[in-house]
């Protein structure tokens, strides 16, 4: 039962990593670079929600979510427009470095606006739901439901809509997709909108669960990064499974390893994958992009 509980905790923690990893890997799939500023989108989502719940607006958190996500999406689109688009003909290295710079810029902007002190939404606490020896907290349940809803939406978008098909085509080969008349601008914007939305929603949940600080995104980006590598860069479903796998491995490790070294798992995954399977665990087959 103890192990089952650890696995459940792992799946839920992992579903949050997956939410971040999916955005990261989508951007990689289309633009071929790892966006280091993705972590700041997570923090930005959380901080925008704080802005809307604080005076003068004082919206309830649930109503603050939509405008907060909208703000984050705007920043995501602006990132693309002002930084990545002008550099898109440069090397991947240029984009990567630009994203690192952008990450610092955004983080410091958050610190400038909100200070570096810990902040919180002041959500009421509630005791968890118990099923026999298994306990799942309300927060965990919200995380799980959100992840399921958003990822199902993504599945539907990718498999049932023209836009999703276009997205996959662009990820496969941008030039060819352009030649075939797929509107690249629209697809690019969609990728940024999706990535920013997922990051913002995840960020808000994370902040509800713990607290807000400018560094909050950076810490989680590492896990997302490991998930992306595990699933194979650019592979959306790989990132999803990768995120959950890392969450489960991390939480199970608490039973055997010292919890003081939880991050070790993510680092080990990154190393092992880069050394032995840089294409991800699904590299033997062509993942769905």
């Amino acid at each position: 039962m103890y192990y089952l509980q650890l696995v459940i905790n792992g799946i839920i923690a992992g579903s949050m990593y997956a939410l971040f990893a999916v955005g990261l890997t989508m951007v990689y799939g289309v633009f071929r670079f790892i966006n280091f500023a993705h972590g700041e989108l997570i923090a930005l989502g959380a901080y925008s929600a704080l802005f809307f719940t604080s005076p003068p607006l004082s919206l309830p958190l649930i109503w603050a979510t939509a405008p907060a996500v909208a703000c984050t999406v705007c920043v995501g689109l602006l990132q693309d427009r002002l930084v990545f688009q002008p550099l898109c003909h440069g090397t991947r290295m240029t984009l990567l470095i630009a994203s690192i710079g952008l990450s610092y810029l955004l983080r410091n902007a958050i610190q400038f606006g909100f200070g570096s002190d810990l902040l919180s939404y002041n959500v009421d606490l509630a005791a968890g739901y118990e099923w026999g020896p298994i306990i799942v907290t309300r927060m965990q349940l919200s995380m799980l439901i959100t992840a399921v809803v958003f990822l199902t939406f993504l599945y539907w978008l990718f498999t049932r809509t023209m836009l999703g098909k276009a997205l996959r085509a662009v990820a496969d080969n941008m030039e060819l997709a352009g030649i075939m008349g797929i509107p690249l601008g629209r697809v690019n914007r969609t990728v940024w909108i999706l990535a920013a939305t997922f990051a913002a929603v995840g960020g808000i949940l994370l902040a509800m669960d713990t607290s807000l600080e400018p560094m909050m995104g950076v810490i989680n980006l590492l896990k997302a990064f490991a998930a992306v590598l595990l699933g194979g860069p650019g592979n959306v479903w790989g990132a999803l499974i990768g995120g959950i796998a890392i969450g489960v491995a991390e939480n199970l490790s608490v039973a055997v390893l010292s919890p003081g070294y939880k991050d070790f798992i993510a680092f080990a995954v990154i190393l092992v994958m880069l050394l032995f399977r840089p294409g991800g665990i699904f590299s033997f087959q062509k993942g769905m992009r």
Partner: protein
Amino acid sequence: MMGSLKKLLGLAIVLAALPVWAQDAVEVGSITPLSGKLAVYGEGFQRAMNLALEEVNAAGGIQGKPLKIIFEDNGSTSQGSVSAIQKLITVHKVPIIFGPAASSNFLAICPIAQQNKVVLIGAESAAADISQCGSYVFRVFPSDILQGRGGAELAKELGYRKVVLTYINNDWGVGLAEAFKDSFTESGGEIIDEFPHEEGKSDYRSEILRIKQSNAPAVVNLTYIKEGAAMLKQAFEMKVKTQWIMGSASKSPKLVEIAGEAAEGIIGTYPTFSQDTPQYQHFKTAWEKAYPESKIGVFAEYNYDMVNLTAKALNLAVESTPEALREALMEAGKGYQGVTGDKTFDENGDVGAVYGKWTVTDGKIVDYRK
């Protein structure tokens, strides 16, 4: 050609004049976490130091010259602290440096200060190892050995013979846990389970599950504000019924603000000092006047004492050699009654301490009384 030469000459004159202008003030350095994970505390440290600085300068400064603190941000990391101290020593050539918070960061720069004969003073670093850093290293904050003993005594006093021990996985946490363990087991206590936890995580549920499994009546959790708040919240949601015993680093209104209801009833130790002294009353009024917007920060009193004590030492020093400054600081500390009590340094540059108990009642941090 002539134009640019003139400009260059002008620039050279300005540059040459700079150090002369700077020498009008007595400069000391401070390595402060103004960004990164400890920035939560850093701003408060800086406010406290600036408060003392203003008072020192209003009272005539150092032998007629104003005192100036050069703040260097260390990004809350050891690497950042090392670059900061190197910059302070080589570029600014300061004789006294206020060390960074977090014992790991402090320990990283100890040997550099000792080697370069620069007086290093800490106002937050508690690791037991710092006592062995060398003759140029001082602190106005008591060593962990004392706090570890204080925590063990508290657990015993509350009647807990069996506890789970968890601590943050860094120099400070490990050192404090060792000190607690030694003292607790020596007096017949038993530690049922012991594990470190990682800094900066958002999910501690599996660690808490381990606590829940052990059915411990009390858990000694030596951690910081953010981690402490997250753990308390998640433990509350997971219906863990236990007595939390915490250290001084989590004693903050922030912890209560974030953890809310979950923080009710936790009990902790902290190095204390009387709030009835005229020194404390003076500090409190001055703080409230200078910073009406913000509460007195964690360790603010220690930072305030550190600057005042340094100013006293600089005024006592007959010359500005490292040895003279070191001796002046020893001398200044003798019987010095600061906001945080007696600051007499022992041969390791350490001060003594009195430990108090705190608890959270109705969302407020108050002194614990049975």
